[in-house]
């Protein structure tokens, strides 16, 4: 039976719009995958030497002390990105398959997710380097197995807390609190957590504990899933009372306003699109990593400041813009048969992005506390985002063609989170180009010339709007039939 279910999964993957949507996207996807794998491996291999030689600490003890942060961060990260086991449950329920089999399968499949496997690319090279440097093999193995169990634990914790926003925010807040406490020497969690992880290395018998916890979590996740396998329980569609939103103010934008008003409702009324707002907020604070010394000076380089500047104001651009026109996939045929000029439609999306970028830039003005040059980087990033990246997301959107099932958030087994890894990968070129521009500019006149080069490119882009929109419009028109066809498939 398991094999049959695997076949189903394989078919749904092979036949998905994402894989059949063209070579370019697939290549980007593979390239990005490879990038992450290589980065993880390099990190796993290199961190021993960096810690040992540069920082003069025992690499294993250091990792053990800080692994608690890694784990919590991993849980938060997964919460946002990892998709829940997608299975068309309703269709299977009345078939002669044991419910237990379905649940075991759905849960078991998650073990092979990128989020588990990618850890192996870090920890295996790291363990190998440990052994090569004279750490006893059996002890390293025991430690390694314990860590593996913990990674799998985060997998099932994620499944358990996925419907519980309150639990998730609790985890996130505690994580931030501990980090702040440690930063200001109030309370250092790592002092207490380090020895716990050391135990797995010192005394292999304790490695059983994380595995037992894993078993327990699996049982919990299993019961959690199984109890919800009824159409009127977990599989039921939750109905919310409709709320009116007053958006008359936008009418001053003319025809474009029709779509802007609709997009605002789209963002606010669907969990999946609402997530873009949360992520934009996260992006807004992302710069703190760069502009404070919490990164240990790793990013103390103007080129990276531009990188951060793009991020701070670009959260909405990357999470929302990237998915134009997929947000409207559920009713794309309606849009295509209505009295709509493509330009108005695209202009509305672009305006949404521009408004959000401007608001983020305003909210980000607290970065001035870190110095004028910091805020200059953010302003430059915003100008570039509006002038160039705003078009680029619309362009790549024409090719993404992954339908978004807005309503899927209401099913416990739908893919529910706001964005997937693939779109994240497509953002890479949008980040590196301004860095290159900055670098070229700075060769001629230092930091400010670099900023000016990036900003001027953005301003130039802004004034070329009509030309670029002509291009995007033609592109959307040629892609129209393919897009309509791709959206017919549900995710």
């Amino acid at each position, binding site marked *: 039976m398991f094999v049959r279910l695997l076949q189903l999964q394989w078919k749904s993957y092979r036949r998905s719009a994402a894989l059949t949507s063209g070579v370019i996207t697939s290549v980007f996807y593979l390239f990005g995958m490879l990038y992450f794998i290589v980065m993880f491996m390099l990190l796993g291999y290199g961190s021993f030497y960096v810690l040992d030689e540069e920082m003069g600490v025992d690499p294993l003890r250091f990792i053990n002390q800080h692994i608690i942060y890694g784990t919590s961060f991993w849980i938060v990260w997964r919460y946002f990105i990892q998709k829940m086991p997608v299975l068309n449950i309703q269709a299977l329920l009345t078939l002669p398959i044991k419910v237990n089999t379905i649940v075991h399968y759905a849960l078991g499949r998650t073990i092979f997710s990128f989020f588990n496997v990618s850890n192996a690319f870090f920890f295996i090279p790291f363990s190998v380097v440990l052994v090569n440097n004279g750490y006893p093999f059996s002890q390293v193995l025991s430690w390694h197995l314990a860590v593996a169990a913990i990674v799998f634990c985060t997998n099932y914790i994620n499944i358990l807390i996925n419907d519980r926003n309150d639990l998730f925010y609790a985890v996130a807040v505690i994580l931030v609190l501990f980090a702040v406490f440690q930063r200001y020497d109030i309370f250092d969690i790592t002092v207490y957590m380090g020895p716990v992880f050391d135990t797995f290395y010192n005394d292999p018998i304790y490695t059983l504990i994380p595995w037992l916890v894993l078993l327990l979590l699996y049982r919990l996740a299993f019961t959690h899933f199984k109890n919800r396998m009824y159409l009127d329980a977990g599989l039921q*569609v939750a*109905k*919310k*009372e*409709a709320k*009116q939103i007053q958006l008359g103010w936008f009418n001053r934008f003319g025809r474009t306003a*029709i779509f802007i008003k*609709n997009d605002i*409702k*789209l963002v606010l*009324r*669907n969990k999946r699109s609402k997530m873009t707002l949360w992520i934009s907020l996260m992006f807004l604070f992302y710069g703190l990593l760069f502009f404070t010394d919490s990164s240990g000076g790793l990013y103390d380089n103007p080129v990276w400041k531009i990188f951060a500047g793009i991020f701070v104001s670009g959260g909405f651009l990357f999470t929302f813009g990237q998915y134009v026109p997929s947000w409207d996939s*559920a*009713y*794309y*045929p*309606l849009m*295509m*048969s*209505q*009295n*709509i*000029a493509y330009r108005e439609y695209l202009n509305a999306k672009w305006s949404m992005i521009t408004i959000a970028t401007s608001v983020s830039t305003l909210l980000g003005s607290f970065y001035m506390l870190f110095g004028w040059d910091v805020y200059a980087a953010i302003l430059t990033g915003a100008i570039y985002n509006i002038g160039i990246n705003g078009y680029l997301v619309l362009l790549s959107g024409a090719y993404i063609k992954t339908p978004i099932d*807005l*309503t899927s958030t209401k099913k416990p087994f739908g893919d529910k989170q706001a964005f997937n890894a693939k779109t994240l990968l497509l953002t890479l070129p949008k980040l590196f180009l301004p860095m290159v521009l900055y670098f070229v500019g700075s060769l001629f006149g230092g930091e400010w010339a670099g900023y000016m080069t990036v900003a001027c490119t953005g301003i130039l882009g802004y004034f070329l709007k009509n030309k670029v929109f002509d291009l995007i419009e033609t592109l959307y028109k040629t892609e129209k*039939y393919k897009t*309509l*066809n791709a*959206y*017919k498939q549900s995710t």
Partner: protein
Amino acid sequence: MIRIEQLTKRYGDTTVLNIPEMDIPKGQVFGLVGNNGAGKTTLFSLLLDLIQATEGTVKIDQVDVSTSEDWKTNTAAFLDDSFLIGYLTPEEYFYFIGELRKVSKEDVDELLAGYADFFNDEILNKKKYIRDLSKGNQKKVGVVATFIGDPELLILDEPFANLDPTTQIRLKELLTEKGKDTNTTILISSHDIQHVTEVCERIAVLEKGEIVKDLKTKAKTLKELEEFFAK
């Protein structure tokens, strides 16, 4: 109103639609019947330029739908639930369509008031999003939305499916009423030959992508269609 010339749609080697020539004059109420896979939805999708014809053209008011978008101003369609926006309330959806068709909120309200009977008090002011309505009620929303702005061409795919008996009868009355207007051309597809014979003045039968019958509706048309499909 509509002119079809040498229209074919092929997927690989399979021809799913092949109509050498067809005219639908202005004001006609045109019914399309056929079994599953006969090509009804394909034809409607081609009329709306949602799929690309392999050969041939569709012209609405002398305009080729695949090269110009002018036809969109006076055409309204409801093919399936991909014509609805799930996260809007029915009212918001009607206003949205109204704005696109340049019909004011007040005029939309006035139009909706006329359909109070049809809605049977299940649609308006219910504080429900369209995605939370039943299939039948969703269909009511979709069908009525096509009436906004008095389009000259209405295209409805299976408008009777999923509706309760009372609503089916009301919809028939509604469409018959609309059909009397010599300015409005209506295209309906259905699996239910009885409904179609009651509403339409002309009925075409599609089979394997070809028009095999094209009838002016008369007293014996229903019998003729029944015999055709009973074979």
